[in-house]
């Protein structure tokens, strides 16, 4: 019966054997994937598994090397660019919606739809927006300025925008990472409404509970391949988790954090009443030898906290102590001299200079150590980086390759080597495994544990709870620029509880 149904109804979107490689790395290999009208199809996979590459091909940002894309029964319907995608009825609701904050809701919905010099009839436009919004978001005013709206309403604007162009396929890319649970439930209602209206929905997330709630079918990607596809009800959450990770997650978790409670571990970093535009009176203490996990929604101030401690953003108030001594960290240089290291989330944008070699990137933070009166001592430097390449297992084991030719995991190791060499004792990691493939991920985890075991104080920001549980001795939760919770023993924590703490629904 179901089989008959599957063959009868042409899918709204179909990828057949789609492949894509970047600089010799197979990002997608032979991917088959289809979404039918009136279903929610979840696309699962770790960072770097190929989900975003697949979506970017769908929106014409990348061109696939091989395979075919069938849209609404039309073969070879590859999309030329994001504009073309909209006109073909494909819409995207991103983690951070692409809206113009200065314009109102109606203007945003119809942006780019009319010829540049045509007369924009405000009243007509607003009426049209109202008609679009009424079925699923009656409370959102079409005259509201988008800049004044929260993330959830901005997503609604994006949904309406693609509906306004006759959208039939709507992709949601981790739409809930910046939403509170109440907003999330609202979004799910909207998605169900879209489903009833026959739209094909692609839903990307790695939150298992959400997948179970909203998705009719799932497809799991790993290392650019489809490893499983089927009805959601055919899989248990554990099975999906294992499929996503390619290993038994329980094993990883069992290895767990380093044994807690080594008597009286010394304080390495303490911040008191740290405040700036995005932070409010954050108090935090990191101890030597521990890994402190930092959880929170996107935009809760986690990144801002570590940037402020590192002196990358200004602080308006508060004190920073390293080894019990007050230090005036007003620039990254000062932080570095105080023994603090920041490993930002965006390796490409904030950690590494792509046009420089592994060795040069390694030496960037310690120029004095490898030079004599400003002239580089090449041999001494080469020796030192080779030691780190060996110790951290950087591959390929060559100091002279450009850092952009390394995989994400190996790039991250180069950054870690850089900071190890500066003699840093406090390491602040912002999403250290984002965009890193599965194998390298556990290597980075091992490295963090080794750092702590050697007596460094390690802070890890992560949006993946399993990662935090696997690593952290303690977990802190941030919300609206404050550190609202500290959990001394995170072993009993569930994703749902943590989410509720992060959104403020649960306060103890």
């Amino acid at each position, binding site marked *: 019966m179901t089989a008959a149904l599957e063959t009868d109804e042409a899918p709204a979107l179909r990828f057949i054997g789609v492949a894509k490689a970047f*600089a*010799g*790395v197979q990002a997608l290999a032979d991917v088959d994937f289809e979404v039918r009208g009136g279903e929610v199809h979840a696309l699962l996979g770790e960072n770097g598994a190929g989900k975003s590459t697949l979506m970017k091909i769908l929106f014409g940002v990348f061109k696939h090397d091989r395979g075919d894309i069938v849209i609404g029964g039309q073969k070879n319907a590859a999309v030329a660019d994001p504009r073309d995608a909209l006109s073909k009825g494909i819409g995207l609701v991103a983690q951070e919606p692409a809206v113009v904050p200065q314009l109102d809701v109606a203007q945003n919905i119809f942006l780019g739809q009319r010829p540049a010099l045509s007369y924009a009839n405000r009243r007509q436009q607003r009426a049209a927006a109202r008609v679009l919004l009424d079925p699923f978001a009656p409370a959102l005013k079409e005259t509201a300025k988008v800049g004044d709206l929260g993330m959830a309403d901005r997503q609604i604007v994006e949904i309406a925008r693609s509906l306004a162009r006759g959208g039939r396929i709507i992709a949601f890319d981790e739409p809930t990472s910046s939403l509170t649970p109440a907003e999330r439930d609202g979004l799910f209602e909207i998605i169900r409404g879209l489903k009833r209206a026959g739209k094909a929905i692609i839903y990307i997330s790695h939150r298992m509970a959400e997948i179970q709630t909203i998705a009719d079918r799932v497809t799991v990607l790993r290392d650019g391949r489809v490893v499983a596809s089927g009805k959601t009800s055919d899989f248990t959450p554990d099975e999906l988790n294992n499929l996503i990770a390619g290993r038994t997650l329980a094993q990883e978790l069992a290895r767990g954090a380093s044994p807690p409670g080594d008597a009286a571990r010394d304080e390495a970093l303490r911040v008191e009443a740290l405040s700036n535009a995005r932070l409010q009176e954050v108090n935090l203490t990191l101890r030597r030898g521990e890994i402190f996990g930092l959880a929170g929604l996107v935009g809760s101030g986690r990144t801002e906290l570590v940037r402020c401690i*590192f002196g*990358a953003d200004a602080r308006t108030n508060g004190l920073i102590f390293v080894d019990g001594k007050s230090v005036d960290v007003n620039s*990254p*240089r000062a*932080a*570095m*001299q105080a023994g603090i290291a*920041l490993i*930002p989330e965006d390796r490409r*944008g*904030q*950690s*590494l*200079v*792509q*046009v*420089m070699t592994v060795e*040069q990137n390694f*030496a*960037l*933070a310690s*120029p004095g150590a*490898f*030079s004599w009166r*400003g*002239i*580089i001592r*090449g041999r001494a430097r080469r020796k030192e980086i080779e030691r780190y390449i060996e110790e951290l*297992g950087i*591959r*390929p*084991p*060559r100091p002279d*390759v*450009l850092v952009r*030719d*390394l*995989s994400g995991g*190996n790039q991250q190791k180069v950054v870690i080597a*850089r900071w190890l060499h*500066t003699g840093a004792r406090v390491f602040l990691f912002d999403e250290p495994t984002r965009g890193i493939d599965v*194998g*390298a991920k556990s290597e980075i985890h091992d490295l963090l544990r080794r750092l702590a075991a050697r007596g460094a104080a390690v802070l890890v920001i992560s949006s993946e709870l399993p990662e935090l549980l696997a690593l952290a001795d303690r977990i802190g939760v941030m919300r609206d620029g404050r550190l609202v919770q500290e959990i001394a023993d995170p072993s009993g924590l569930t994703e749902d509880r943590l989410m509720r703490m992060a959104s403020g629904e649960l306060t103890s």
Partner: protein
Amino acid sequence: MTLNRNALDAARGMDRVNLAKRAARFDWIRRASVAMGAIALFLVFSALTPTFYQPGNLVDIMLQSSINAVIAVGMTLVVMTKGIDLSVGSIVGVSSMVAASLLHTNLWLGVGVGLAVGLACGLVNGVLIAKLKLPDFIVTLGSMSIYRGFALIYTDGKPIYGIDKTFRSTFAGTVFGAPTPVLIALAIALAAFLLVRFTTLGEQIVAVGGNEEAARLSGVDVDRVKISVYAISGVLSAVAGFILVARIGAAEPIGGNGFELQAIGAAVIGGASLFGGEGNPLGSLIGALTLGGMRNGLTLLNVPSFWQYVATGVVVILAVLADQVTRKRR
């Protein structure tokens, strides 16, 4: 199991390295294309007019290109940090006027103060850009006008004649038969090459241009690096001004007008990327020779000088286009 994964990872890594090698070869072709372009230009003009390849004319080309080459070396360092210095021509004017006015008092006083004026102009640019975070384009466009104004105000717009003989023979004479402007340009380009290749500052210039935020978060003193390159650009503009004055035997307040495009052109033709992080002072030397050779050849072919403006602009835009296109492939 772990071993297997390591082996796999290593294999993947080596795959990347091979690709990188291919990319490097591609880069090499890109760089060689600069030289090949220069050679092609040489052959075309030689075919069109035999005068072009006469030794005397070739020396002329080198002489004519040397002033631009000196400025282009400074420009290259600025461009490598993803910056731009539009004020170089005006610094040529103001520093050469000040130097020329002091030459009759004392030769070295003139040279010293002239260099100091160039340095000061560059420092002002650098401080405004690095410390006050103003856009480089606007700062140097403004200071281009300011410095030119100073050059005109200084003598009320009048040129200074009667330039000291020793000064002329130092900056526009010959040493063992080799013209000193050419030697100066060579020495400066070589020094800048060594700076980029073998010093911490050189590496930090690449880092700031390649990824300013990463450099800053690695503790690099980004402001100091930026101020340094504009200061160097200012000093080298002053040196170029000396050569200009020594060659024509007079200092004119409008001297150096329009030099910025020539210098940017030489830098880009020589492989510097306006997107930052890439550049080679020795390449810029070849870039300056290419532009100089083109102008010389067009003059020999009796192409009206007005058309040379058009040709220069076209070549510079083509060079930037080539950079843009090859960049996209990566």
